Protein backbone atom coordinates (compact mmCIF):
# COMPACT_ATOMS: atom_id res chain seq x y z
CA UNK A 1 0.00 0.00 0.00
CA UNK A 2 1.53 3.27 -1.04
CA UNK A 3 1.50 6.35 -3.20
CA UNK A 4 3.61 5.75 -6.31
CA UNK A 5 4.40 8.25 -9.06
CA UNK A 6 5.67 7.06 -12.42
CA UNK A 7 7.21 9.54 -14.85
CA UNK A 8 4.83 12.23 -13.76
CA UNK A 9 4.92 15.59 -15.56
CA UNK A 10 2.92 18.71 -14.97
CA UNK A 11 2.83 21.79 -17.16
CA UNK A 12 1.00 24.95 -16.08
CA UNK A 13 -0.87 26.85 -18.83
CA UNK A 14 0.49 24.74 -21.69
CA UNK A 15 0.82 26.40 -25.12
CA UNK A 16 0.50 29.91 -23.69
CA UNK A 17 3.06 32.59 -22.87
CA UNK A 18 2.85 31.49 -19.23
CA UNK A 19 3.73 27.86 -19.88
CA UNK A 20 5.72 26.42 -17.01
CA UNK A 21 7.02 22.90 -16.71
CA UNK A 22 6.45 22.59 -12.96
CA UNK A 23 7.14 18.88 -12.48
CA UNK A 24 9.54 16.95 -14.64
CA UNK A 25 9.51 13.18 -14.88
CA UNK A 26 8.89 12.51 -11.20
CA UNK A 27 9.31 8.90 -10.05
CA UNK A 28 8.65 8.37 -6.35
CA UNK A 29 7.19 5.93 -3.91
CA UNK A 30 5.84 6.74 -0.46
CA UNK A 31 5.05 3.51 1.40
CA UNK A 32 2.39 3.30 4.10
CA UNK A 33 3.37 4.50 7.53
CA UNK A 34 6.40 6.54 6.54
CA UNK A 35 7.19 10.06 7.79
CA UNK A 36 8.51 11.82 4.70
CA UNK A 37 9.89 15.36 4.52
CA UNK A 38 9.76 17.39 1.33
CA UNK A 39 12.10 20.35 0.97
CA UNK A 40 12.90 22.65 -1.93
CA UNK A 41 13.34 26.33 -2.83
CA UNK A 42 10.25 28.49 -3.36
CA UNK A 43 8.92 27.62 -6.79
CA UNK A 44 10.63 24.20 -6.86
CA UNK A 45 7.32 22.36 -7.33
CA UNK A 46 6.69 21.09 -3.77
CA UNK A 47 3.15 22.40 -3.49
CA UNK A 48 2.30 21.35 -7.06
CA UNK A 49 3.61 17.89 -6.26
CA UNK A 50 1.56 17.36 -3.12
CA UNK A 51 -1.62 18.54 -4.82
CA UNK A 52 -1.24 15.54 -7.13
CA UNK A 53 -1.37 13.16 -4.17
CA UNK A 54 -5.12 13.59 -3.70
CA UNK A 55 -5.94 14.37 -7.30
CA UNK A 56 -6.50 18.12 -6.91
CA UNK A 57 -4.19 18.63 -9.88
CA UNK A 58 -4.19 16.13 -12.72
CA UNK A 59 -0.79 15.32 -14.20
CA UNK A 60 -0.15 16.40 -17.79
CA UNK A 61 1.26 12.93 -18.26
CA UNK A 62 2.56 10.01 -16.26
CA UNK A 63 0.84 7.82 -13.71
CA UNK A 64 -0.04 8.08 -10.05
CA UNK A 65 -0.91 4.89 -8.20
CA UNK A 66 -2.68 4.95 -4.87
CA UNK A 67 -2.67 1.48 -3.34
CA UNK A 68 -1.69 0.06 -6.73
CA UNK A 69 -4.61 1.67 -8.56
CA UNK A 70 -3.93 4.28 -11.22
CA UNK A 71 -6.00 7.27 -10.15
CA UNK A 72 -6.16 8.58 -13.73
CA UNK A 73 -8.04 5.49 -14.98
CA UNK A 74 -11.58 6.34 -16.07
CA UNK A 75 -14.06 5.53 -13.34
CA UNK A 76 -11.51 5.79 -10.51
CA UNK A 77 -13.19 6.74 -7.25
CA UNK A 78 -11.67 10.21 -6.70
CA UNK A 79 -13.95 10.89 -3.75
CA UNK A 80 -12.52 7.93 -1.90
CA UNK A 81 -8.97 9.09 -2.66
CA UNK A 82 -9.73 12.51 -1.21
CA UNK A 83 -11.15 10.89 1.91
CA UNK A 84 -7.99 8.90 2.41
CA UNK A 85 -5.38 11.50 1.52
CA UNK A 86 -5.92 14.58 3.67
CA UNK A 87 -4.25 17.79 2.58
CA UNK A 88 -3.51 20.65 4.97
CA UNK A 89 -2.70 23.73 2.91
CA UNK A 90 -0.36 26.58 3.76
CA UNK A 91 -2.02 28.94 6.22
CA UNK A 92 -4.99 26.56 6.64
CA UNK A 93 -6.52 28.94 9.17
CA UNK A 94 -7.58 31.14 6.24
CA UNK A 95 -10.05 28.41 5.39
CA UNK A 96 -11.87 28.44 8.71
CA UNK A 97 -15.34 29.81 8.18
CA UNK A 98 -17.96 28.30 10.49
CA UNK A 99 -19.62 29.94 13.47
CA UNK A 100 -17.69 27.88 16.00
CA UNK A 101 -14.73 25.53 16.10
CA UNK A 102 -16.86 22.41 16.55
CA UNK A 103 -19.05 23.13 13.51
CA UNK A 104 -15.98 23.93 11.44
CA UNK A 105 -14.31 20.62 12.25
CA UNK A 106 -17.59 18.78 11.50
CA UNK A 107 -17.70 20.23 7.99
CA UNK A 108 -15.43 17.56 6.44
CA UNK A 109 -17.13 14.47 7.87
CA UNK A 110 -20.55 16.05 7.15
CA UNK A 111 -19.61 16.20 3.49
CA UNK A 112 -18.55 12.59 3.67
CA UNK A 113 -22.20 11.86 4.39
CA UNK A 114 -21.87 10.89 8.04
CA UNK A 115 -24.65 11.35 10.56
CA UNK A 116 -24.58 14.30 12.96
CA UNK A 117 -23.58 12.05 15.87
CA UNK A 118 -20.75 10.46 13.93
CA UNK A 119 -19.52 13.87 12.78
CA UNK A 120 -19.51 15.11 16.33
CA UNK A 121 -17.69 12.07 17.64
CA UNK A 122 -15.02 12.40 14.97
CA UNK A 123 -14.69 16.11 15.58
CA UNK A 124 -14.19 15.55 19.30
CA UNK A 125 -11.45 13.02 18.66
CA UNK A 126 -9.77 15.22 16.05
CA UNK A 127 -9.77 18.18 18.42
CA UNK A 128 -8.28 15.99 21.12
CA UNK A 129 -5.65 14.82 18.62
CA UNK A 130 -4.46 18.35 17.86
CA UNK A 131 -4.50 19.25 21.53
CA UNK A 132 -7.01 22.08 21.36
CA UNK A 133 -8.55 22.70 24.76
CA UNK A 134 -12.23 21.99 25.29
CA UNK A 135 -13.02 25.54 26.32
CA UNK A 136 -12.45 26.64 22.71
CA UNK A 137 -14.81 24.16 21.06
CA UNK A 138 -17.68 26.60 21.01
CA UNK A 139 -15.67 29.77 20.41
CA UNK A 140 -15.64 31.43 17.04
CA UNK A 141 -12.55 30.18 15.19
CA UNK A 142 -11.64 33.82 14.53
CA UNK A 143 -11.17 34.53 18.23
CA UNK A 144 -8.38 31.97 18.57
CA UNK A 145 -4.67 32.75 18.49
CA UNK A 146 -2.61 31.91 15.39
CA UNK A 147 -1.41 28.58 16.74
CA UNK A 148 -4.86 27.56 17.96
CA UNK A 149 -6.46 28.47 14.64
CA UNK A 150 -3.99 26.28 12.86
CA UNK A 151 -4.74 23.38 15.21
CA UNK A 152 -8.45 23.80 14.54
CA UNK A 153 -7.81 23.76 10.79
CA UNK A 154 -5.69 20.62 11.03
CA UNK A 155 -8.41 18.99 13.15
CA UNK A 156 -10.82 19.66 10.29
CA UNK A 157 -8.71 17.46 8.03
CA UNK A 158 -8.08 14.79 10.71
CA UNK A 159 -11.82 14.48 11.32
CA UNK A 160 -12.06 12.98 7.84
CA UNK A 161 -9.81 10.15 9.10
CA UNK A 162 -7.23 10.28 6.35
CA UNK A 163 -4.74 7.43 6.03
CA UNK A 164 -2.21 9.84 4.60
CA UNK A 165 -1.74 13.30 6.09
CA UNK A 166 -0.04 15.87 3.87
CA UNK A 167 1.00 19.15 5.54
CA UNK A 168 2.24 22.10 3.49
CA UNK A 169 4.43 24.26 5.75
CA UNK A 170 2.26 23.78 8.82
CA UNK A 171 4.48 25.90 11.05
CA UNK A 172 5.12 28.98 8.88
CA UNK A 173 4.65 32.10 10.98
CA UNK A 174 4.25 30.26 14.28
CA UNK A 175 6.40 31.05 17.31
CA UNK A 176 9.00 28.41 18.31
CA UNK A 177 6.77 26.84 20.96
CA UNK A 178 3.79 26.67 18.61
CA UNK A 179 6.03 25.11 15.99
CA UNK A 180 7.35 22.41 18.34
CA UNK A 181 3.87 21.71 19.73
CA UNK A 182 2.32 21.10 16.32
CA UNK A 183 5.18 18.96 15.03
CA UNK A 184 5.38 16.92 18.25
CA UNK A 185 1.66 16.33 17.95
CA UNK A 186 1.95 15.20 14.33
CA UNK A 187 4.85 12.88 15.23
CA UNK A 188 2.85 11.44 18.11
CA UNK A 189 -0.12 10.86 15.84
CA UNK A 190 2.12 9.21 13.30
CA UNK A 191 3.53 6.86 15.91
CA UNK A 192 0.21 6.03 17.56
CA UNK A 193 -1.87 5.50 14.45
CA UNK A 194 0.69 4.47 11.84
CA UNK A 195 -0.64 7.21 9.59
CA UNK A 196 1.60 8.19 6.67
CA UNK A 197 2.82 11.77 7.12
CA UNK A 198 4.18 13.94 4.33
CA UNK A 199 5.61 17.19 5.68
CA UNK A 200 6.63 20.11 3.47
CA UNK A 201 8.87 22.58 5.29
CA UNK A 202 11.48 25.30 4.88
CA UNK A 203 12.99 24.47 8.25
CA UNK A 204 15.88 22.07 7.76
CA UNK A 205 16.15 21.64 11.53
CA UNK A 206 12.54 20.46 11.78
CA UNK A 207 12.82 18.11 8.84
CA UNK A 208 16.03 16.61 10.25
CA UNK A 209 14.34 16.03 13.58
CA UNK A 210 11.17 14.33 12.39
CA UNK A 211 11.48 12.78 8.93
CA UNK A 212 12.55 9.20 8.16
CA UNK A 213 13.30 10.19 4.60
CA UNK A 214 13.70 13.44 2.70
CA UNK A 215 12.68 14.25 -0.85
CA UNK A 216 14.49 17.29 -2.22
CA UNK A 217 12.82 19.16 -5.08
CA UNK A 218 14.83 21.44 -7.35
CA UNK A 219 13.33 23.24 -10.37
CA UNK A 220 10.59 20.65 -10.75
CA UNK A 221 12.85 17.62 -10.44
CA UNK A 222 13.64 15.23 -7.63
CA UNK A 223 17.20 16.09 -6.65
CA UNK A 224 17.65 13.71 -3.71
CA UNK A 225 15.47 11.05 -2.15
CA UNK A 226 17.22 9.56 0.85
CA UNK A 227 17.67 9.41 4.63
CA UNK A 228 18.26 12.81 6.33
CA UNK A 229 21.94 12.12 7.02
CA UNK A 230 22.61 11.17 3.41
CA UNK A 231 20.72 14.19 2.08
CA UNK A 232 22.32 16.78 4.36
CA UNK A 233 25.78 15.41 3.56
CA UNK A 234 25.26 17.21 0.22
CA UNK A 235 24.99 20.57 1.95
CA UNK A 236 26.90 22.44 -0.73
CA UNK A 237 24.64 21.16 -3.48
CA UNK A 238 21.64 21.95 -1.28
CA UNK A 239 22.81 25.55 -0.98
CA UNK A 240 22.99 25.73 -4.76
CA UNK A 241 19.39 24.57 -4.80
CA UNK A 242 18.22 27.34 -2.44
CA UNK A 243 18.41 25.20 0.70
CA UNK A 244 20.81 24.54 3.54
CA UNK A 245 21.72 21.90 6.10
CA UNK A 246 20.72 22.17 9.77
CA UNK A 247 23.04 24.48 11.72
CA UNK A 248 24.64 21.57 13.61
CA UNK A 249 25.76 19.96 10.36
CA UNK A 250 27.80 23.09 9.59
CA UNK A 251 29.35 23.04 13.05
CA UNK A 252 30.43 19.43 12.57
CA UNK A 253 32.03 20.23 9.22
CA UNK A 254 33.88 23.13 10.80
CA UNK A 255 35.15 20.95 13.65
CA UNK A 256 36.28 18.25 11.26
CA UNK A 257 38.24 20.83 9.25
CA UNK A 258 39.92 21.89 12.47
CA UNK A 259 41.06 18.35 13.06
CA UNK A 260 38.48 16.93 15.46
CA UNK A 261 37.57 13.39 14.30
CA UNK A 262 33.77 13.79 14.26
CA UNK A 263 31.13 12.19 12.06
CA UNK A 264 29.98 15.00 9.78
CA UNK A 265 26.71 13.35 8.82
CA UNK A 266 24.85 14.12 12.06
CA UNK A 267 21.77 16.29 11.75
CA UNK A 268 20.37 16.80 15.25
CA UNK A 269 21.65 18.47 18.41
CA UNK A 270 21.82 15.34 20.56
CA UNK A 271 23.66 13.37 17.86
CA UNK A 272 26.13 16.24 17.51
CA UNK A 273 26.71 16.38 21.27
CA UNK A 274 27.35 12.60 21.34
CA UNK A 275 29.85 12.89 18.51
CA UNK A 276 31.76 15.79 20.03
CA UNK A 277 32.03 14.08 23.42
CA UNK A 278 33.23 10.89 21.77
CA UNK A 279 35.80 12.72 19.67
CA UNK A 280 37.15 14.61 22.67
CA UNK A 281 37.49 11.29 24.47
CA UNK A 282 36.08 12.82 27.63
CA UNK A 283 33.77 11.19 30.09
CA UNK A 284 30.28 11.61 28.69
CA UNK A 285 27.79 12.72 31.30
CA UNK A 286 25.03 12.85 28.73
CA UNK A 287 21.92 10.86 28.29
CA UNK A 288 22.05 7.12 27.92
CA UNK A 289 20.64 5.60 24.77
CA UNK A 290 17.47 4.67 26.66
CA UNK A 291 17.03 8.23 27.90
CA UNK A 292 17.46 9.54 24.39
CA UNK A 293 14.86 7.17 23.10
CA UNK A 294 12.43 8.32 25.77
CA UNK A 295 13.13 11.93 24.87
CA UNK A 296 12.47 11.31 21.21
CA UNK A 297 9.24 9.52 21.92
CA UNK A 298 8.03 12.16 24.31
CA UNK A 299 4.34 12.73 24.59
CA UNK A 300 3.24 16.09 23.28
CA UNK A 301 2.42 18.62 25.93
CA UNK A 302 -1.23 18.92 25.01
CA UNK A 303 -1.64 15.46 26.45
CA UNK A 304 -1.62 11.85 25.48
CA UNK A 305 -4.75 10.26 24.12
CA UNK A 306 -6.83 7.86 26.11
CA UNK A 307 -6.65 4.22 25.05
CA UNK A 308 -10.29 4.40 24.09
CA UNK A 309 -9.61 7.21 21.65
CA UNK A 310 -6.59 5.43 20.23
CA UNK A 311 -8.65 2.30 19.74
CA UNK A 312 -11.16 4.24 17.69
CA UNK A 313 -8.70 5.85 15.32
CA UNK A 314 -6.42 2.93 14.65
Amino acid at each position, binding site marked *: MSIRLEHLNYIYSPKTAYEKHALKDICLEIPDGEFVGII*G*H*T*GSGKSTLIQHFNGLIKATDGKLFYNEENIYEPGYNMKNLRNEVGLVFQYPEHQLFEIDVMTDVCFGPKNQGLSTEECKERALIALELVGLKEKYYHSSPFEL*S*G*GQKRRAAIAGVLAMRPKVLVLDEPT*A*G*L*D*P*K*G*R*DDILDQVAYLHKQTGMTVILVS*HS*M*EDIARYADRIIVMNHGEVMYNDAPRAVFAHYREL*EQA*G*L*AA*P*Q*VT*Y*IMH*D*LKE*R*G*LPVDISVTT*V*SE*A*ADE*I*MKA*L*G*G*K*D*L*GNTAAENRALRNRTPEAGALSNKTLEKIR
Partner: protein
Amino acid sequence: MSMIQAEKLVFEYEKRDEDGNVVGTSRAIDGVDIDAREGQFVAVLGHNGSGKSTFAKHLNAILVPTDGTVWVDGRNTKEPEELWHVRQAAGMVFQNPDNQIIGTVVEEDVGFGPENLGVPTDEIWQRVEESLKAVGMISYRHHSPNKLSGGQKQRVAIAGVVAMEPKCIVLDEPTAMLDPVGRKEVLKTVQRLREEKKVTVILITHYMEEVVDADKIYVMDHGKVAMEGTPKEIFSQVEKLKEYRLDVPQVTILADELKRRGLDIPAGILQKEELADCISSMILQDNSQRTEMDG
Protein backbone atom coordinates in the same frame (compact mmCIF):
# COMPACT_ATOMS: atom_id res chain seq x y z
CA MET B 1 19.67 60.37 19.03
CA SER B 2 16.59 58.17 19.22
CA MET B 3 15.11 57.12 15.88
CA ILE B 4 12.26 55.23 17.48
CA GLN B 5 11.05 55.88 20.97
CA ALA B 6 7.99 54.38 22.56
CA GLU B 7 7.12 55.63 26.02
CA LYS B 8 4.51 53.93 28.20
CA LEU B 9 2.79 52.86 24.99
CA VAL B 10 -0.70 51.41 25.42
CA PHE B 11 -2.93 50.18 22.65
CA GLU B 12 -6.46 48.95 23.15
CA TYR B 13 -8.82 47.77 20.49
CA GLU B 14 -12.55 47.47 20.74
CA LYS B 15 -14.25 44.12 20.61
CA ARG B 16 -17.49 44.22 18.68
CA ASP B 17 -20.38 41.80 18.34
CA GLU B 18 -21.98 40.83 15.02
CA ASP B 19 -24.04 44.02 14.86
CA GLY B 20 -20.97 46.16 15.37
CA ASN B 21 -21.74 47.18 18.95
CA VAL B 22 -18.76 47.59 21.22
CA VAL B 23 -18.77 44.77 23.78
CA GLY B 24 -15.48 45.49 25.47
CA THR B 25 -11.85 46.44 24.99
CA SER B 26 -8.75 44.36 24.77
CA ARG B 27 -5.30 45.62 25.63
CA ALA B 28 -2.79 44.48 22.98
CA ILE B 29 0.06 46.67 24.23
CA ASP B 30 0.36 47.48 27.87
CA GLY B 31 2.91 50.11 28.90
CA VAL B 32 5.79 49.42 26.56
CA ASP B 33 9.07 51.37 26.55
CA ILE B 34 11.18 50.60 23.50
CA ASP B 35 14.03 52.67 22.21
CA ALA B 36 16.12 52.40 19.04
CA ARG B 37 18.88 54.86 18.36
CA GLU B 38 19.91 56.04 14.94
CA GLY B 39 21.72 53.31 13.00
CA GLN B 40 20.96 50.58 15.53
CA PHE B 41 19.70 47.09 14.76
CA VAL B 42 16.95 46.31 17.23
CA ALA B 43 15.09 43.00 17.29
CA VAL B 44 11.67 42.34 18.80
CA LEU B 45 10.84 38.74 19.69
CA GLY B 46 7.71 37.30 21.20
CA HIS B 47 5.14 34.55 20.73
CA ASN B 48 2.10 34.78 18.47
CA GLY B 49 -0.23 37.28 20.01
CA SER B 50 2.40 38.93 22.23
CA GLY B 51 1.78 42.32 20.64
CA LYS B 52 4.90 42.69 18.52
CA SER B 53 3.12 43.26 15.21
CA THR B 54 0.74 45.71 16.85
CA PHE B 55 3.82 47.52 18.12
CA ALA B 56 5.34 47.55 14.61
CA LYS B 57 2.20 49.14 13.19
CA HIS B 58 2.72 52.08 15.55
CA LEU B 59 6.06 52.88 13.97
CA ASN B 60 4.58 54.35 10.83
CA ALA B 61 1.29 55.41 12.32
CA ILE B 62 -0.88 52.67 10.84
CA LEU B 63 -2.03 52.54 14.45
CA VAL B 64 -1.76 55.37 16.96
CA PRO B 65 -1.40 54.92 20.72
CA THR B 66 -4.44 54.71 22.98
CA ASP B 67 -2.14 56.05 25.68
CA GLY B 68 1.54 56.91 25.91
CA THR B 69 3.60 58.25 23.03
CA VAL B 70 5.59 57.03 20.05
CA TRP B 71 8.21 59.31 18.52
CA VAL B 72 9.65 58.46 15.14
CA ASP B 73 12.63 60.57 14.15
CA GLY B 74 11.59 63.01 16.87
CA ARG B 75 8.01 63.35 15.64
CA ASN B 76 4.94 62.36 17.64
CA THR B 77 2.93 59.82 15.61
CA LYS B 78 -0.30 61.03 17.21
CA GLU B 79 -0.12 64.42 15.54
CA PRO B 80 -2.05 64.27 12.24
CA GLU B 81 0.20 66.91 10.65
CA GLU B 82 3.25 64.73 11.31
CA LEU B 83 1.77 61.71 9.54
CA TRP B 84 3.62 62.11 6.24
CA HIS B 85 6.93 62.80 7.94
CA VAL B 86 6.49 59.73 10.10
CA ARG B 87 5.64 57.51 7.14
CA GLN B 88 8.58 58.84 5.20
CA ALA B 89 10.93 58.25 8.10
CA ALA B 90 9.87 54.66 8.80
CA GLY B 91 9.24 52.17 5.98
CA MET B 92 7.54 48.84 6.57
CA VAL B 93 8.19 45.40 5.08
CA PHE B 94 5.63 42.68 5.81
CA GLN B 95 5.60 38.88 5.86
CA ASN B 96 4.02 38.05 2.54
CA PRO B 97 5.87 39.46 -0.47
CA ASP B 98 2.88 38.84 -2.72
CA ASN B 99 0.76 41.30 -0.76
CA GLN B 100 3.27 44.10 -1.13
CA ILE B 101 4.03 44.09 -4.82
CA ILE B 102 1.70 46.07 -7.07
CA GLY B 103 3.74 46.84 -10.19
CA THR B 104 3.82 44.67 -13.31
CA VAL B 105 7.52 45.35 -13.83
CA VAL B 106 10.09 45.34 -11.03
CA GLU B 107 11.32 48.91 -11.59
CA GLU B 108 7.79 50.29 -11.71
CA ASP B 109 7.00 48.61 -8.44
CA VAL B 110 10.04 50.15 -6.79
CA GLY B 111 9.18 53.57 -8.25
CA PHE B 112 5.67 53.54 -6.79
CA GLY B 113 6.73 54.80 -3.35
CA PRO B 114 8.82 57.81 -4.40
CA GLU B 115 6.22 58.68 -7.03
CA ASN B 116 3.64 59.00 -4.28
CA LEU B 117 5.97 61.22 -2.33
CA GLY B 118 6.00 63.61 -5.30
CA VAL B 119 9.64 63.05 -6.13
CA PRO B 120 10.58 64.49 -9.59
CA THR B 121 10.68 61.85 -12.36
CA ASP B 122 14.44 61.99 -12.99
CA GLU B 123 15.12 61.49 -9.34
CA ILE B 124 12.63 58.59 -9.14
CA TRP B 125 14.61 56.71 -11.78
CA GLN B 126 17.82 57.46 -9.99
CA ARG B 127 16.40 56.21 -6.70
CA VAL B 128 14.97 53.10 -8.36
CA GLU B 129 18.34 52.23 -9.80
CA GLU B 130 20.15 52.88 -6.55
CA SER B 131 17.78 50.88 -4.39
CA LEU B 132 17.67 47.93 -6.77
CA LYS B 133 21.47 47.93 -6.64
CA ALA B 134 21.38 48.09 -2.86
CA VAL B 135 19.28 44.91 -2.66
CA GLY B 136 21.17 43.16 -5.45
CA MET B 137 18.22 43.02 -7.86
CA ILE B 138 19.29 45.50 -10.54
CA SER B 139 19.60 42.80 -13.21
CA TYR B 140 15.90 42.02 -12.75
CA ARG B 141 14.68 45.60 -13.25
CA HIS B 142 12.71 44.79 -16.41
CA HIS B 143 11.33 41.48 -15.15
CA SER B 144 7.81 40.74 -14.04
CA PRO B 145 7.68 40.35 -10.24
CA ASN B 146 5.44 37.29 -10.70
CA LYS B 147 8.30 35.21 -11.93
CA LEU B 148 10.64 35.93 -9.06
CA SER B 149 11.35 33.60 -6.14
CA GLY B 150 10.03 34.49 -2.69
CA GLY B 151 13.39 35.85 -1.55
CA GLN B 152 13.73 37.95 -4.68
CA LYS B 153 10.21 39.34 -4.31
CA GLN B 154 10.94 40.25 -0.73
CA ARG B 155 14.11 42.05 -1.82
CA VAL B 156 12.08 44.00 -4.38
CA ALA B 157 9.65 44.91 -1.59
CA ILE B 158 12.61 46.13 0.46
CA ALA B 159 13.92 48.12 -2.54
CA GLY B 160 10.49 49.75 -2.78
CA VAL B 161 10.88 50.91 0.80
CA VAL B 162 14.52 51.94 0.34
CA ALA B 163 13.56 54.10 -2.68
CA MET B 164 11.52 56.24 -0.30
CA GLU B 165 14.77 56.88 1.56
CA PRO B 166 13.49 56.15 5.05
CA LYS B 167 15.80 56.60 7.99
CA CYS B 168 14.37 53.48 9.54
CA ILE B 169 13.09 50.17 8.15
CA VAL B 170 10.66 48.05 10.13
CA LEU B 171 10.53 44.41 9.03
CA ASP B 172 7.67 42.31 10.39
CA GLU B 173 8.61 38.63 9.94
CA PRO B 174 10.07 39.27 6.49
CA THR B 175 11.46 35.75 6.14
CA ALA B 176 8.58 33.62 7.46
CA MET B 177 7.59 32.42 4.00
CA LEU B 178 11.04 32.05 2.47
CA ASP B 179 13.36 29.12 1.84
CA PRO B 180 16.78 29.08 3.57
CA VAL B 181 18.62 30.88 0.77
CA GLY B 182 15.82 33.45 0.40
CA ARG B 183 16.11 34.05 4.14
CA LYS B 184 19.85 34.57 3.86
CA GLU B 185 19.43 36.97 0.90
CA VAL B 186 17.00 39.16 2.80
CA LEU B 187 19.15 39.30 5.92
CA LYS B 188 22.28 40.11 3.92
CA THR B 189 20.38 42.90 2.19
CA VAL B 190 19.30 44.35 5.52
CA GLN B 191 22.86 44.09 6.80
CA ARG B 192 24.12 45.97 3.73
CA LEU B 193 21.59 48.76 4.16
CA ARG B 194 22.76 49.22 7.70
CA GLU B 195 26.38 49.44 6.69
CA GLU B 196 26.04 51.52 3.54
CA LYS B 197 23.05 53.72 4.27
CA LYS B 198 23.21 53.68 8.07
CA VAL B 199 19.53 52.80 8.17
CA THR B 200 18.02 51.98 11.57
CA VAL B 201 16.56 48.46 11.46
CA ILE B 202 13.71 47.07 13.57
CA LEU B 203 13.36 43.34 12.92
CA ILE B 204 10.49 41.22 14.17
CA THR B 205 11.00 37.51 13.74
CA HIS B 206 10.45 33.98 15.02
CA TYR B 207 13.87 32.81 13.84
CA MET B 208 16.32 33.18 16.70
CA GLU B 209 19.32 32.76 14.38
CA GLU B 210 18.44 36.01 12.65
CA VAL B 211 18.92 38.27 15.64
CA VAL B 212 22.29 37.16 17.02
CA ASP B 213 23.90 40.29 15.50
CA ALA B 214 21.34 42.71 16.91
CA ASP B 215 22.49 45.63 19.06
CA LYS B 216 19.55 45.07 21.34
CA ILE B 217 16.74 42.55 21.73
CA TYR B 218 13.33 43.13 23.28
CA VAL B 219 11.19 40.13 24.20
CA MET B 220 7.48 40.85 24.37
CA ASP B 221 4.92 38.85 26.30
CA HIS B 222 1.25 39.67 26.76
CA GLY B 223 1.73 43.20 25.49
CA LYS B 224 4.60 44.00 27.85
CA VAL B 225 8.37 44.04 27.47
CA ALA B 226 9.42 40.91 29.35
CA MET B 227 13.17 40.94 28.63
CA GLU B 228 15.60 43.46 27.25
CA GLY B 229 19.31 43.11 26.54
CA THR B 230 22.09 42.12 24.16
CA PRO B 231 21.79 38.81 22.29
CA LYS B 232 24.28 37.26 24.72
CA GLU B 233 22.31 38.39 27.73
CA ILE B 234 19.02 37.21 26.25
CA PHE B 235 20.09 33.85 24.82
CA SER B 236 21.96 32.77 27.93
CA GLN B 237 18.56 32.51 29.64
CA VAL B 238 17.29 29.41 27.86
CA GLU B 239 14.68 28.44 30.45
CA LYS B 240 13.21 31.92 30.70
CA LEU B 241 12.91 32.17 26.91
CA LYS B 242 11.08 28.85 26.83
CA GLU B 243 8.56 30.28 29.29
CA TYR B 244 7.86 32.98 26.74
CA ARG B 245 7.36 30.30 24.05
CA LEU B 246 10.65 31.20 22.40
CA ASP B 247 13.82 29.32 21.69
CA VAL B 248 17.55 29.87 21.25
CA PRO B 249 19.68 29.30 18.12
CA GLN B 250 20.56 25.64 17.50
CA VAL B 251 24.26 26.31 18.15
CA THR B 252 23.35 27.72 21.58
CA ILE B 253 21.36 24.57 22.38
CA LEU B 254 24.34 22.42 21.36
CA ALA B 255 26.74 24.52 23.47
CA ASP B 256 24.35 24.22 26.41
CA GLU B 257 24.10 20.45 25.96
CA LEU B 258 27.90 20.08 25.84
CA LYS B 259 28.21 22.18 28.96
CA ARG B 260 25.71 19.98 30.70
CA ARG B 261 27.83 16.98 29.75
CA GLY B 262 30.82 18.45 31.50
CA LEU B 263 32.70 20.49 28.89
CA ASP B 264 34.02 23.86 29.96
CA ILE B 265 31.97 26.08 27.64
CA PRO B 266 30.87 29.63 28.47
CA ALA B 267 27.15 30.50 28.49
CA GLY B 268 25.48 32.40 25.68
CA ILE B 269 27.38 31.12 22.65
CA LEU B 270 25.63 32.46 19.54
CA GLN B 271 27.85 31.83 16.52
CA LYS B 272 28.97 28.56 14.97
CA GLU B 273 32.56 29.84 14.83
CA GLU B 274 32.50 30.72 18.52
CA LEU B 275 31.62 27.15 19.46
CA ALA B 276 34.12 25.63 17.05
CA ASP B 277 36.86 27.93 18.45
CA CYS B 278 35.95 26.90 21.94
CA ILE B 279 36.07 23.17 21.17
CA SER B 280 39.25 23.33 19.11
CA SER B 281 41.03 25.16 21.94
CA MET B 282 40.18 22.08 24.04
CA ILE B 283 41.85 19.83 21.49
CA LEU B 284 44.96 22.00 21.59
CA GLN B 285 45.05 21.93 25.38
CA ASP B 286 44.57 18.21 25.31
CA ASN B 287 47.45 17.76 22.86
CA SER B 288 49.86 19.93 24.81
CA GLN B 289 49.09 18.01 27.99
CA ARG B 290 49.87 14.80 26.19
CA THR B 291 53.15 16.19 24.85
CA GLU B 292 54.12 17.25 28.37
CA MET B 293 53.44 13.75 29.65
CA ASP B 294 55.44 12.18 26.85
CA GLY B 295 58.37 14.52 27.60
